[in-house]
């Protein structure tokens, strides 16, 4: 699981807004042995994938923001090759905690929704850390 990110921030009213672009290369079934793949398969209705940013600020000890999500239905290709993706949802902080924040962790997680039964069947994740710059961008080519 690999992610490449490039980002810059802009002030919006009174809260920091972060812009993140990313690549995702993922193979959801990679490394699972046969019996796991079998179980994974027969009761799986869909995979709910989401990319979330987690970080701490002065205002809040823990912040989590979902930047992007995707539903993969059973039978869809389990391999993802996404390049230059923009976030689907606005990455607003509750305050000005993005500026100069060196430690934002981006995590790709997934919920397996079964045809019937326990929710979620499996939760997996992989992650990478990114820093935000110390200054705001005043012009954005977005």
């Amino acid at each position, binding site marked *: 699981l690999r992610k490449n990110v490039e980002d810059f921030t802009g002030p919006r009213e009174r809260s920091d807004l972060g812009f993140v672009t990313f690549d995702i290369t993922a193979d959801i079934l990679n490394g699972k042995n046969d019996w796991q793949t079998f179980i994974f398969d027969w009761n799986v*209705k*869909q995979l*709910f994938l*989401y990319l*979330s940013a987690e970080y701490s600020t002065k*205002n*809040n*000890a*823990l*912040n*989590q*923001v*979902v930047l992007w*999500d995707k*539903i993969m*239905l059973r039978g869809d290709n389990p391999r993802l090759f996404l390049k230059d993706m923009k976030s689907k*949802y606005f990455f607003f902080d*509750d305050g000005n905690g993005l500026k100069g924040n060196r430690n934002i962790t981006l995590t790709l*997680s997934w*919920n397996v*929704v079964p*045809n*019937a*039964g*326990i*929710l979620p069947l499996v*939760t997996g994740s992989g992650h990478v850390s990114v820093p935000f710059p110390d200054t705001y961008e005043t012009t954005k080519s977005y």
Partner: protein
Amino acid sequence: STSPLLFFSGSMEPAFHRGDLLFLTNRIEDPIRVGEIVVFRIEGREIPIVHRVLKIHEKQNGDIKFLTKGDNNAVDDRGLYKRGQHWLEKKDVVGRARGFVPYIGIVTILMNDYPKFKYAVLFLLGLFVLVHRE
């Protein structure tokens, strides 16, 4: 304790459909994290909503405010909240969706939407009872 909830909305498709029966737990200690499916009630409204957590901001002391969104909705739930309310809090949470059985409730929904179907079901039930009265 686990309680069942009959799910009526299309806002969480394709995960849940109208007629699915959801099982909820209400363990308050469970931390609220993004990606989880929570059941919440908006102040003043009876019907609980079952959506996914999109954003959280939690303080050191555990106070948390969060935003939700239905998988099948284009926008987050802010438009559903009370006027002036931008976030949900722990007190709005009714439970967590822990499991489900699909389609079970469809009979109830059909009976509701199509009275003729309801009479047919009742008639068949009556017949069944009569036939089995040994």
